[in-house]
């Protein structure tokens, strides 16, 4: 595995499976009375968040703490960053403090690439602009494997997502979740289809390892997984679509549309949801929905990522 996790494209199939299998081993911790491993004791993980994202930050924080790492939360608001300090100076500050890993969330695509050039430690991309969010894709893959392959723990070892049909719906153009998922899920053997209005697809999406459709209803009966993306109100003013209601009518997942899915299919959403826009409340709260499960799996998957990037080789306390 590479030293950093910046793009899902950094992961070979073997790398991705190693992370998912490691996460399965770590998941068994969650059932123990003491959920903590001493593995990263004495190592420092910095959560460097330039965007508000409480859910992702606490997920990484919980992951690092369960591995006994020291965690420093550095959020842009109220810090020197808010006073106009450059990313480079922030990086040099973290470097001086001796960060072993920096988890970065940033509004600019490519910020983690830049950071990786200025720090010695591992850089983990926790979402950069409209580029990628690789740990989200990993936790999604983990969730899909558990739910649709019905496997967990050691039984899941080495199992990919071959043949699973995933439809990702919505604002692909601006979605870091979509980019990472297309790359990772296809690496793992899934067949990915993007369903969106043409305005919300990148111009050259034809070169991506996935299929493209403008017609969600057509895709639903052949989907094992439907992944709904958050759609933002401000896209309307930039003429990506005429109105939120029309968007919802054509691409929102309501009860009637959910009924077109095969019996076994699951519904995913990276959160935060716009209930009543891209997903109806009844769908979000249905048995098909994995939304809460995704959050729990996020911690486990991120533990696996930190563990592997920071040089772990085995889990004596888990495997014994």
């Amino acid at each position, binding site marked *: 595995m590479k030293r950093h996790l910046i793009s899902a494209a950094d992961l070979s199939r073997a790398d991705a499976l190693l992370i998912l299998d490691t996460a399965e081993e770590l998941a068994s911790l969650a059932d123990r009375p003491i959920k903590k491993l001493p593995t990263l004791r004495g190592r420092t993980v910095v959560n460097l968040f330039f965007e508000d994202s409480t859910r992702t930050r606490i997920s990484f924080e919980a992951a690092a703490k369960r591995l006994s790492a020291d965690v420093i939360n550095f959020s842009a608001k109220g810090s020197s960053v808010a006073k106009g300090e450059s990313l480079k100076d922030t990086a040099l500050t973290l470097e001086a403090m001796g960060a072993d890993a920096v988890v970065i969330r940033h509004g600019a*695509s*490519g910020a983690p690439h*830049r950071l990786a050039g200025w720090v010695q430690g591992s850089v983990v991309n926790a979402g*950069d602009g*409209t580029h990628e969010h690789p740990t989200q894709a990993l936790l999604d893959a983990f969730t899909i494997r558990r739910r649709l392959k019905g496997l967990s723990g050691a039984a899941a070892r080495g199992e990919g997502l071959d043949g699973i049909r995933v439809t990702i719906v919505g604002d692909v153009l601006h979605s*870091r979740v979509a980019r990472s998922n297309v790359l990772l899920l296809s690496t793992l053997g899934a067949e990915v289809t993007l369903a969106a209005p043409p305005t919300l697809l990148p*111009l*050259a999406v034809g070169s*991506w390892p996935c299929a493209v459709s403008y017609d969600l209803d057509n895709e639903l009966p052949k989907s094992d997984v439907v992944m709904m993306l958050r759609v933002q109100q401000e896209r309307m003013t930039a003429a990506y679509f005429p109105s939120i209601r029309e968007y919802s009518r054509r691409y929102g997942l309501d009860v009637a549309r959910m009924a077109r899915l095969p019996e076994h299919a699951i519904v995913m959403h990276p959160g935060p949801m716009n209930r009543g826009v891209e997903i109806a409340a009844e769908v979000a709260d249905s048995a098909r929905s994995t939304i809460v499960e995704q959050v729990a799996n996020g911690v486990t998957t991120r533990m696996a990522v930190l563990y592997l990037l920071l040089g772990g080789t085995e889990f004596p306390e888990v495997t014994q």
Partner: protein
Amino acid sequence: MTADHINGQAAWLIRGATVIADPAAGEGRLTGPADIIVSGGSIVAIGPGLSAAGARVIDADGLIALPGLVDMHTHLREPGREDAETVETGTAAAALGGYTAVHAMANTEPVADTAGVVEQVWRLGRVAGHCDVQPVGAVTMGLAGISLAELGTMADSAARVRMFSDDGRCVSDPLLMRRALEYVKAFDGVIAQHAQDPRLTEGAQLNEGEMSGRLGLAGWPAVAEEAVIARDCLLAAHVDSALHVCHVSTAGSVEIIRWAKSKGWPVTAEVTPHHLLLTDELAVNYDPVFKVNPPLRTAADVAALRRALADGTIDCVATDHAPHPVEAKETEWSEAAFGMIGLETALRVVQQAMVDTGLLDWAGVADRMSVRPARIGRLTGHGALPAVGGPANLTLYDPAAPAEPVGYGASKSRNTPFAGMELPGRVVATMLRGSPTVLDGKLA
């Protein structure tokens, strides 16, 4: 007569150069290397086996003698951003790149939209003395695109402005563009347009295509350039006035310009060295040294631009030398400034992209980098092929110099996309009106 003077004038004997001369003139019939004697700011003799008692000798064996290069598109940053470049440092870089004249773009602080500012820039160029500085005037007040700047007053000033441009911004209002084109006819002016539809490029970061989609950077579509060029060509034809298209970057733009020229319309165009060599794939690691406006495009665009420069559809190479301080590039891609420096590497890039590929010979280089840019800029005293009696503005270039990695030079800024890249050739000497500004590759 003292040493190195003839009739009291400083004299130089350039020995054994391959002279790129006008084929219609006597010098054009040279079949081999020749000597050039320079005195009093002019060329006094060209021919084999010349001697000039007391003249200082430049050994030009294996070198090409080009007319001094002329850049149509330079950002010297002074006044206002002297932390990035000054007229002194920018023209030193120009001389080292083989230039004897540059056109200084108007987007300074304050903007060069009055006679006062253009005369200041012109005067700073004279003081620096490394090359001639021809100020470009802004088309609109403050580059705001709302009302015309005093174009006639700048034309009448000591700076003798003939080319006007809001470069960095597009004159997007079609009525204002029409009026500007019309108005400058009174003094043989030319409007140099930065073709970029502002609505189609809001927040744009990188050529819209496979790379922008993959990297999650807002796309800068080719059509945003091409639509404006098409409109401007039609306007130029309608009012019969001169349009110059800055930094053409797409294959589609080339087709439109080719069509406009086939109609006989008064349209000229330039291409930058970086658009002749680099593609948007270089953005893969988000290093903003590759961030420029218009953006780097695809390999197909690069190929089309090279062909267009070779066949003359694109008239000239212009650097769009755009210095920025370190901190403007040591940042996130979307925060970083657009622009690259290029004066010191332009000729080497052109050799690599055009000459070594067989697309252009050295006479073609002289035409595209000196003769035509001087003509388009209405610049007198430059852009003349070496000829007896003509001005001694010369560039001596060694195309056989082994390829060496590009380093940092005289520019105050370091935002060169070619850093570390191995490029062929070397500018050995530059001569401005008979005085060397560069000798042995160093400032004289």
